[in-house]
């Protein structure tokens, strides 16, 4: 289990300084973005389709370098990291993709265990944790099923389990509840919330589900025309008043 260290709170978990992104010679997808997310924070990212949410997330999970500016994770400017250091940094980031990106030739269990295998862990070390996590997301009976035999909601839960199995310092989720029913959506949000509160995981959720945003008292960042603005209290006024954001959850 990841231990919280005092120094984790000394520096921003995510820091974007004047970040712009341009693909080839097209218009800028992201323009001059400044953002600081403290360790252990919970944030929503929203915006219309095509506003650049996925592009911004790509910068955060280090799949894409910015065209301009600097992306720093856990106090380290990523532009100065070697390839091996970038890999090590990615291991501290869990990602839930909108389209799941599960590997169809692997079982549910193997998909969730994949990041641990990448980290060089032995199966004997992680088997129980992976099985327990899958039971927790309601897939205890589906351990050895292939993703293609699972429903969309089940696949989404596998993707989430895979993202959190390493107990990452930063969890990035792109529309994580898009394919599940409201009950499961609330349950998954509880998982994110617990990771955030219990382990201090910094969570960034990209969504345009206002209902989801209202469930948790958290800053909301909106992307529009490649610019990022914070919308505290405007989008989710009811959430501001809650003391227990999970009270309404099943």
């Amino acid at each position, binding site marked *: 289990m990841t231990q919280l260290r005092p120094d984790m709170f000394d520096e921003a978990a995510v820091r974007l300084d004047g970040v712009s992104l341009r693909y080839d010679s097209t218009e800028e997808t992201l323009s001059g973005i400044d953002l600081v997310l403290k360790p252990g924070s919970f944030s929503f990212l929203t915006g219309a389709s095509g506003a650049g949410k996925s592009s911004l997330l790509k910068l955060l999970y280090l799949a894409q370098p910015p065209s301009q500016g600097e992306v720093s994770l856990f106090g380290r400017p990523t532009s100065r990291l070697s390839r091996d250091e970038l890999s090590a940094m990615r291991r501290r980031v869990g*990602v839930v993709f909108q389209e799941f990106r599960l590997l169809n030739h692997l079982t549910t269990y193997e998909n969730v265990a994949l990041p641990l295998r990448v980290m060089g862990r032995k199966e004997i070390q992680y088997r129980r944790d992976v099985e327990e996590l899958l039971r927790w997301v309601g897939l205890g009976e589906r351990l050895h099923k292939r993703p293609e035999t699972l429903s969309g909601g089940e696949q989404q839960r596998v993707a989430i389990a895979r993202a959190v199995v390493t107990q990452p310092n930063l969890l990035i989720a792109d529309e994580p509840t898009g394919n599940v029913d409201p009950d499961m959506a609330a349950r998954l949000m509880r998982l994110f919330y617990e990771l955030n509160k219990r382990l201090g995981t910094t969570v960034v959720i990209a969504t345009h589900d206002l209902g989801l945003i209202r469930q948790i008292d958290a800053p909301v960042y909106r992307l529009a025309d490649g610019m990022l603005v914070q919308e505290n209290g405007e989008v989710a006024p009811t959430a501001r008043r809650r003391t227990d954001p999970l009270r309404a959850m099943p």
Partner: protein
Amino acid sequence: MKPRENSLLPLEDAREAALFFVVGALCFLAALAALSAKSTYGAARAWTAEVEGEYTVSLSGADATAADEAARLLAGLDGVITARAFSDAEINALLEPNFGKSGLPADLPVPRLIAVTGAADAEDLGARISTALHDAGHSAAVDAHAEWAGDVRHMLSISRIAALSIVALLSATAIAVIAFATHAALLARRDIVDVLHVAGAKDRFIAGLFERRFWLLGLRAGTVGALVALASVAVLIALGRSGTERSGLLPQLSLDFPDLAVLVVTPVIAGLAARLAAGITVMRSLRSVM
């Protein structure tokens, strides 16, 4: 019992089956070319060793008696192992392709021939034979077979270079094909590579997956190619031995330890080449992403 964990790369698909066939065929041709090069070299060595030290002496204006006397003279020279004058029947047999079975016209002056075998280390034997016959009053021409052997050796060395070039070309082709196939496999499995990449897999880790996959593919395809080459050589040997006559100039096919070593090494080289091509291709491809 818990199922065994699957490889992070999916099982082979049709593309890899096609690649398996291509690599196997290239290994078959490479093994066959290597065996041919080795056989040709062996045959050339055997043949040149055989003719080394052999001379044919032509005596002009001499009869059978004079030829026998000259042969006895040459047999006494230092370094000469045997010297034997050809009989009329042997000379007629040699000339039969030109003059037919009816034999030679009686008035046609035909030189008498003497076959001389000298010791391999005999120095300047051709010149000494010529001098001895001249001193004895014979008009003679001495033909050293080793001079012909030099030409044959030269020709065979060119054949050997050609065979080795073919082996090198086939190897390079195999590497290029594997590199191309690896690139295609990488594109086809971009989703897997992306997931591994985002999960924090180092380039070496991802390259290692492809290297293991293509090492095994090269090894298995190379083994099949080498086995087919072995079977082909065995068939050629069997066909060669069933013939009634053998030409000393043709390479004699056989399977000895070095031949088997070639067949054993072929799949290993194929596997290593495949591993190398896959590793380089994947690393280069990964370097193009963050």
